[in-house]
């Protein structure tokens, strides 16, 4: 999953992108995914997943705390973007990928990996395989 997000970020922002470009690209990716998630789990569900993801990523990137605190007014993406814009380009990219990966992991912990992969495939069909994983009953 992580390499796919690295590729997506690079495609959106460019390989030599500056922090603002990385930040804008990361926000676009988050919003694209949220757009596919919202019909399924609602705005409240997206906000809950987003808030929990920022909390889990926070120990590695303490600056995300502000973004999480702002989640209550419904604008975490703006604050994530603000945080990323003020990082070193490498750190910004790493933080953006971490937030996206953790968000997917949080989502999968609720609705399962198969359904999460299906949603990722719908959002970015070139990067994610949406075929259901083999399950045994």
């Amino acid at each position, binding site marked *: 999953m992580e390499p796919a997000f690295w590729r997506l970020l690079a495609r959106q922002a460019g390989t030599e992108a500056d922090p603002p470009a990385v930040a804008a690209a990361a926000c676009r990716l988050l919003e694209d995914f949220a757009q596919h998630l919202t019909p*399924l789990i609602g705005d409240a569900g997206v906000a809950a997943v987003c808030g929990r993801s920022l909390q889990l990523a926070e120990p590695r990137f303490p600056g995300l705390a502000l973004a999480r605190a702002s989640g209550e007014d419904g604008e975490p993406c703006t604050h994530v973007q603000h945080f990323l814009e003020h990082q070193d380009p490498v750190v910004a990219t790493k933080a953006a990928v971490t937030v996206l990966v953790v968000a997917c992991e949080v989502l999968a912990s609720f609705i399962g990996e198969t359904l999460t992969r299906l949603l990722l495939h719908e959002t970015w069909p070139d990067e994610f395989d949406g075929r259901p994983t083999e399950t045994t009953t």
Partner: protein
Amino acid sequence: MTDKVPIRRLSTGVPGLDAVLGGGLPEFSFNVVAGAPGAGKTTLVQQIMFALARHDRPALYFTVLGEPPLKMLRYQQQFEFFNIAEVNASVRFVNLAKEALEGGLDEVLRRIAQEVEAASPAIVIVDSFRSVVQAAKRQNGGGDLQRFVQDLGMRLTGWQATTFLVGEFQLTETEDPVFTIADGLLWLYQSLDRNSMVRKIQIMKMRGQAPIPGLHTFRITNRGIQVFPRLILDLPKTPPVGGEARTKRQQPRVSVGVTGLDEMLGGGIPSGQSVLVAGPSGSGKTVLATHFIREGVRRGERGVIAVFEKRPSEYAQTSAIGLDQAVRDGQVGIIHTRPLDLSIDETQYELTTAIERLKARRVVIDSLSGFELALAPTFREDFRESLYRLVAALTGMGVTVMMTAELEDTYSHLRFSPHGTAFLTDAIILQRYLELEGQLQRVMAVVKVRASAHSKDLRLFEISADGITVGERVGDCEGLLTGSPHAVSPDGQRPRRRARSR
């Protein structure tokens, strides 16, 4: 061409529900699924949704307020019917929480209309509709609710969608406009009686067809919901004048497989009838039932045994004459249903399914006492009535039924069943212990065979590794069943030996 519009009935994918509905779900119907929290409403509609959704005519599942969709998806996908691959393909979830909270009924209706027009769904579900109602009441006192429901019902029917509104309604709320407008009203209950929980469904209304009235039990497992329709007996067909007695006389007999007992029964059990074997613990009821099944196997008639006191493997191995080989060969099916929370209808379903699968001709229920104990307490109250329906259903299928019943050995009065069910059966075989000349002996008698002559003898019998051997008639004694027997001479005058029952 007929001048009446045909109503296509959709198969719901919920075992047993189509029968309860009266043949399936009417296409384009506008239905309400009501019940308390935890009654199984969401599971029911999702099971129906996954069964009916197609790629060209998908299902739209609108979540409003109430159970968070994140959790609903988490829990519902545990069911086998939840096909993840169909999510966002033939099954689409649409969350309307924002519209309900911010825009009110008009906004909810606008969004539903928008989504339905875009997707042209065959199935539309609004879960929970109750929360839509509450949101409407919060906003404007619910004044527009009737118009909203009317509008929604008309639009969804116009779009040729079969619709379900799911809600936590109370029985006291049936004056709600939604109940008037709905074509179908499915009410789910869960009741607690002592330590047992029982789920029931009632079709309170289904326009255009006749559902089976009353409450039907259902069970939720990882496969989803299974309904066990409450059996309504068909009225017996009127026999041709003068034909009944002839029919009885000509009825073929089924051998019990015990030499001597068939003669006592007047040639065996009348085929397609029921027989009760009553006796105290250890008297040989199960052995006799095993004979009955084994004899069927020998004659190429398969059998089904419903066991309530032992595990099937133990039953097949420990019965004196063994059935394990016949079970392995598929000649005999043994049903061991979930104890302590059963309904009669569930047991009947298990039995009829096994009978149809095996094409069985003989059925044993061993024992009625264990069966009664295995039922949820709420069903024990009407055990007799339920058993009547069960026996009638089984014999109606043409199978011959043998039931065992444990009877306390008492000499103060004569009875044949602890359940007062003796009248339900066509024949009764009674087993008892007697003390004769200082020995404990088993005796057997045929108490009744409906519309047939039978032996009135009390016959001694023994149980060995080969099973039951019926011996001679207990002669020269009277009052064996009263507890005060006395010997009589062949001329009925002079005592020759003394006999006393235990």
